[in-house]
């Protein structure tokens, strides 16, 4: 440990860091050596993923949709998928590897994760069916919505606008009207809500 601190803890061993440090960055930092193609990815997908996410990433029931949704982000019902919304392929690799399949995380080999990532690209029509993804060509793949994000701009667009002494009396021309009622929807769990006397 460095001289400045309290002298608490102990240096981490290389094997320990290697066991826990599995994160991947957009520039490829953290990617292990390996590869996988679309066909292999499809096999793994059908076996490990399709039960929730559908054969083509279209999703079963309420589980997340993985593919499609292009052109919907500025519409009324955006479909945010890896293809239509996610900015970086590294996030796909990192997340599938660290947290999927749901209920059996970290059970996929590195090559299986490459193959699944290739299949996810294919199911989003972003690569051909003979595509093989590896640590070497990983950085060449960019996702369609990479430029769709910008840094929190509330300081410029909201904070100054929502500041200052607000109106305290006669703030509206006339009485205020109810425009929407939650009881019409009636989707609140029964417990604890009093609806009528």
């Amino acid at each position, binding site marked *: 440990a460095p001289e400045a601190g309290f002298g608490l803890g102990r*240096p*981490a061993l290389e094997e320990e860091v290697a066991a826990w440090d599995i*994160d991947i960055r957009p520039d490829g930092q953290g990617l292990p050596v390996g590869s996988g193609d679309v066909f292999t990815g499809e096999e793994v997908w059908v076996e490990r993923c399709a039960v929730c996410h559908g054969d083509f990433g279209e999703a079963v029931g309420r589980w997340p949709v993985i593919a499609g949704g292009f052109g919907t982000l500025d519409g009324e019902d955006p479909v945010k998928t890896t293809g239509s919304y996610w900015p970086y392929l590294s996030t796909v690799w990192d997340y599938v590897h660290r947290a999927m399949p749901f209920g059996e995380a970290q059970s996929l080999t590195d090559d299986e994760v490459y193959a699944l990532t290739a299949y996810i690209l294919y199911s989003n029509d972003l690569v051909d069916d003979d595509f093989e993804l590896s640590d070497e060509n990983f950085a060449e793949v960019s996702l369609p919505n990479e430029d769709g994000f910008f840094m929190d701009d509330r300081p410029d667009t909201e904070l100054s606008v929502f500041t*200052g002494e607000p109106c305290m009396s006669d703030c509206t021309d006339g009485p*205020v009207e109810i*425009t929407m009622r*939650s009881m019409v929807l009636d989707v609140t*769990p029964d417990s604890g809500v009093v609806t009528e006397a």
Partner: protein
Amino acid sequence: MSDLIKAKGLKPAPKNGGTPPDASRRAFLGAAATGAAATVAATAARAASPDPLITDLEQQPWTQYLGDGVDAAPYGMPSEHEAHVVRRNVEWLTADPVSSVNFTPLHELDGIITPNGLCFERHHAGVAEMDKGSYRLMINGLVDTPMVFTMDDLMRFPRENHAYFLECAANSGMEWRGAQLNGCQFTHGMIHNVIYTGVPLRLILEEAGIKTAGKWILPEGADASGMTRSIPMEKALDDCLVAFKMNGEALRPEQGYPVRLVVPGWEGNMWVKWLRRIEVGDQPWHHREETSKYTDLLEDGRARRFTWEMDAKSVITSPSPQAPITHGPGPTVITGVAWSGRGTIPRVDVTLDGGRNWVQARMSGPSLNKSMHRFYHEFDWDGSPLLLQSRAHDSTGYVQPTKEQLREVRGENSIYHNNGIQTWAVNERGIAENVEVG
């Protein structure tokens, strides 16, 4: 002994007193509300006959017989008459209860501290059941010496105590398109406010020695979701805590036992539970929880990223849909909570007429940085319908906007960070409903 005392067969009081112990909360409230409507202002009404809860000893067994001894409840629970004060979930919100959320019963709480057992839960892979002895915290990346700490190590660092709110970024997110869920537990209950005891993250990072190029940290959870978020070093060195106690006792398992990260004022997702590792890097990682999730889609199809701070917000907790006015016209207490991720709450305004006229509420209790504040407004209700709203001001001068003002900037699809003003419509019988007004 206690057979005599467990007097669960208590008869409901015949007239105007007491809570029938075997009646459900809902039935009680409904009945009480009806009674209130039928009997005009009961203020200082003279009793027609003696109250048996005073005059009849049989109805007060606690006065005569012995109660439980001190050995009956090594860890006490709330009164059985408070059994309705519980976390609730909304089944249709998520595909699965394991990656899901439940809600703090704000409508039943007062003051500013959330009891540990009622703090809302948000997991992405369920509750990781860890023990203190197996706990390890690793610091690695751009540091002089990658380090491993045990729980015993953490307990030897200098500690601090702070009350902070933790609000889920998605709190009120179901309300972007209009009034949907009927109750402040559901519209505003993804929040809790507790006193954390922990070690300033700065001290632990300094133990490993941050390299000059280290500008970001990546805290990671030990659960099966492997929760990760990128946090700028400036915040990490400012007020983040590595916490192991909440309200004086160990963290609850569902709140990250034995150790969680505390990121004051910032969206709850970043408060990584079951904290097992912190990596230091020179740029953000753009992981799933800061790209696919916790990015805020605007109307033009582009999205804000790294919307960390939770803006000033408030809600009236009573009256509210789960807490109607049951006493009829007369003296009435309005109360609620307010908070800001950017400072304290010096002032809350309250309106009874949907925002046409406002009065300043009375703040009560401690005013702490990035913590919940409690406000009250007492008034004489004449029994006419009300449109209740509260409007928080924070110490930066920011005033809580209306939902309409937020929608003008963001549209309806941003999911997160809805801090718009909430309206409750209260009818002549005191029943409250979640509404929007215009």
